[in-house]
């Protein structure tokens, strides 16, 4: 049934620097196994993935359910989700005076490793250019520029376990000049240096942890960031605990002297195949934004690593099931056979299909739980496979067995959240949340929302509520006061079987 984790014990042991132990490797540019340990947190066996949060939560998953079902190996949180637009306004979370404000604020379990970065992953390009001291963020109400001082102060205040150094990357820019690339590495170095100084001079009570720093590795050629890398090695390497890598293919160029550090990928993968590629290049911790985007589209993952041993078929199998399809409406089967997640052990496809088509939020939650479980077991088995020395062979069968991409999205996503509007597709002039049937009946009027069961008209402003319930929007669609239409030969859909 529920894969409840035992209540985490709050460790009293002061946290040391990240301890990363490479357990197995076959050389550079090869998959490796490791153990990533933060004092007081659950150790992570790598390669593994971090849960990708939005405003401090895994989308669709309330924090209690995250603790209960997601079993994720830690989370990635973006500062931009907590910053308010107006410069004079201090982000509310900064005023929360408890030992670990960010963790407490977002109600994250005590044993979950917490990694803070400046931007969401993937970041939405911002129109403002970066300066020598600041980058541009996208907050819930608009763009805001944030200086490296601000970022370091935020890290000091929020006390995540790991802080990813602020990187000067002009996201969304198609071509970047050599001059600009020089600037990227200069600024990133200066900002990292500032973060390191801030952390190292932070006054903390004895035994109280500071935070660990992951140094960004820029998505540009090695010789263009060689100065930065040299300085990193010369005088910062002792102060950093890991690397945040924006382009997995640059692992090739990573100086040997940085190989002992854990590598966090901020290189956005599009598919499980790309995850395997990153792992094969030696990535340790990965972020997998496609989990939530698939969930939003109603796609339930259906893949295992290595693929099941079934008679060879000439058609490649799909990586996910589109749960919008009506064919699932009567299927009393789990999303994936054998999956031990909450959604698969407690519910079935028929219910999940119903929830999606009824626009009930629980549908997305169940798919989200399942998709996280599938990716979790994908990583578990790829670790086993690396250990057994069968990884390359399994990757080959995986690629032969499954389609290269996740299925096309057909269904409607849940109501778009703020950050969805600003993606590149935003340029299209479409209605953000189009309604389905427009409520018109034989050309008669528009939908009018009128009283419903349980609605009690109330004069008090705070008690008043508009009926916009998705369920009721479906029920309305008929103009108030329109004269009755006489309909003959009425039939209830279910009468047919009688």
């Amino acid at each position: 049934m529920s894969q409840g984790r035992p209540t985490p014990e709050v460790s009293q042991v002061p946290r040391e620097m990240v301890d990363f132990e490479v357990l197995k490797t076959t050389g550079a540019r090869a998959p490796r196994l490791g153990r990533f340990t933060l004092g007081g947190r659950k150790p992570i066996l790598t390669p593994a993935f971090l849960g990708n949060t939005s405003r401090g939560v895994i989308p669709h998953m309330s924090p209690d359910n995250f603790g209960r079902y997601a079993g994720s190996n830690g989370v990635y949180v973006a500062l931009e989700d907590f910053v308010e637009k107006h410069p004079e306004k201090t982000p509310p979370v900064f005023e929360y005076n408890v030992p670990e404000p960010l963790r407490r604020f977002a109600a994250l379990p005590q044993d979950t490793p917490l990694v803070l970065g400046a931007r969401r992953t993937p970041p939405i390009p911002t129109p403002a250019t970066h300066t020598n001291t600041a980058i541009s963020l996208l907050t819930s109400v608009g763009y805001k520029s944030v200086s490296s001082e601000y970022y370091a102060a935020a890290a000091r205040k929020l006390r995540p376990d790991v802080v990813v150094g602020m990187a000067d990357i002009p996201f969304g820019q198609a071509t970047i000049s050599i001059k600009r690339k020089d600037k990227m590495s200069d600024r990133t170095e200066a900002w990292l240096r500032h973060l390191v100084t801030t952390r190292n001079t932070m006054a903390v009570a004895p035994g109280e942890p500071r935070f660990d720093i992951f140094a960004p590795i820029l998505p540009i050629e090695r010789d263009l960031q060689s100065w930065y890398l040299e300085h990193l090695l010369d005088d910062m390497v002792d102060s950093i605990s890991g690397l945040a890598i924006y382009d997995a293919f640059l692992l090739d160029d990573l100086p040997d002297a940085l190989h002992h550090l854990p590598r966090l990928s901020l290189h956005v993968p599009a598919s499980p195949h790309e995850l395997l590629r990153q792992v094969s290049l030696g990535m340790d911790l990965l972020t997998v934004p496609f989990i939530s985007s698939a969930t939003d589209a109603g796609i339930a993952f259906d893949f295992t690593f290595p693929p099941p041993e079934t008679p060879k078929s000439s058609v490649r199998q799909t990586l996910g099931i589109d749960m919008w399809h009506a064919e699932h409406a009567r299927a009393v089967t789990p999303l994936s056979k054998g999956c031990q997640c909450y959604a698969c052990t407690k519910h079935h496809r028929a219910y999940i299909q119903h929830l999606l088509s009824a626009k009930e939020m629980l549908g997305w939650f169940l798919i989200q739980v399942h998709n996280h479980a599938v990716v979790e077991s994908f990583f578990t088995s790829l670790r086993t496979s690396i250990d057994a020395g069968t990884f390359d062979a399994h990757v080959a069968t995986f690629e032969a067995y499954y389609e290269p991409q996740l299925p096309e999205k057909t269904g409607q996503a849940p109501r778009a959240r703020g950050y969805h509007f600003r993606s590149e597709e935003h340029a299209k002039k479409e209605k953000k949340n189009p309604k389905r049937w427009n409520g018109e009946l034989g050309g008669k009027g528009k939908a009018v929302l009128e009283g419903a069961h349980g609605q009690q008209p109330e004069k008090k402003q705070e008690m008043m509520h508009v009926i916009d319930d998705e369920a009721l929007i479906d029920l309305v669609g008929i103009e108030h006061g329109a004269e009755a239409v006489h309909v003959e030969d009425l039939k209830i859909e279910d009468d047919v079987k009688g």
Partner: protein
Amino acid sequence: PSALSFELLGKCSVTKARAATLHLPHGPVPLPIFMPVATQASLKGLTPEQLEKQGCRLCLNNTYHLGLKPGQATLDAIGGAHRFQSWPHNLLTDGDSFQMVSLLKLAQVTEEGVRFLSPHDGSPMLLTPEHSISLQNSIGSDIMMQLDDVIVTTSPDLARMKEAMERSVRWLDRCIQAHKYPERQNLFCIIQGGLDLDLRRECTAEMVARDTPGIAIGGLSGGEAKDEYCKVVDTCTGLLPEKKPRYVMGVGYPEDLVVSVALGADMFDCVWPTRTARFGNAITSRGVLNLRNAVYSTDFGPIEEGCQCTCCRPPEDGGLGITRAYVYHTTAKETAGAHLLTMHNVHYQLNLMRLVREAILEDRYPAFLRSFFAKLYDDKSKYPEWAVGALKGVGVDLLSD
């Protein structure tokens, strides 16, 4: 035949309030009770476990919605709505006529049933008492509601009101006739008659004579004056047998609940607590707080001090320790924000009824009512007149000291 037993445990010595345990096919439930509304077999993003954790053992589904989606054939194939939504506790299905008639202005009521156009695709539909019961039999709800003919209580057309009341009685007979499983599902009648007390009395007598396992008072919560509402409830409960549960449909504001209990009602349902959560509204004993207001952005207290819901309980007690500031941070931006407030609001309503029940069992309900209103309003002058009047009618003077 009936599939429930009503165990009366205590009565208030002043008001008409009662405390009981209702033994239903999927377990006992305490009365008085508030029932959250999971219209489409799901409660606003909560898992059955999350709903259960807030103390819920009886919730509503909507017959008409489930009849459309997933449809009767699917419900039959899966074996009913409990299995469909993995809810091991009790379900009540709403007969829907209220929604059909007041919501769908194009609906047309004939003796045969309610004709209307599907809001999904505009296709013509007919809902008859037989069809409603057949659907509810397929759903397998522990409590089923009859199909009734409802018109808004504020309608001035007394003749139409009388017709609707009498038709509801005839439809009850058809429902009873059509009910296939009276030994495992309880069919409740619904008293109609608008705000006309004579019609209500007449209807009550007809309904009581048909001896259903439970009795509902319907057609209310449609915008009528609150004192009129109270008169109807008071009149009906005065004529009802003591040993049967009394359900007032569609009622859910905290002050309505405590007053209606004093007037002798036992069961309530309302979508308001869960719907309003989606707009950032938190129900507390001091009133409703809209947590989207910027003043809460730096309020690091719980939604309500001392609340034992999953959100408000501190982490040391196994809760999440959610702050008002965090609800402000997520509400209307992430669905999880709505899930959090939904849990709190459901818990608030269920806990309120638990406190009500304790007070009745200890025969201190009048004192409970006084302290309830004193918390909700900072001054006696702000007490709603209808509540003061209704409670005076059952022996509690809120304004005295």
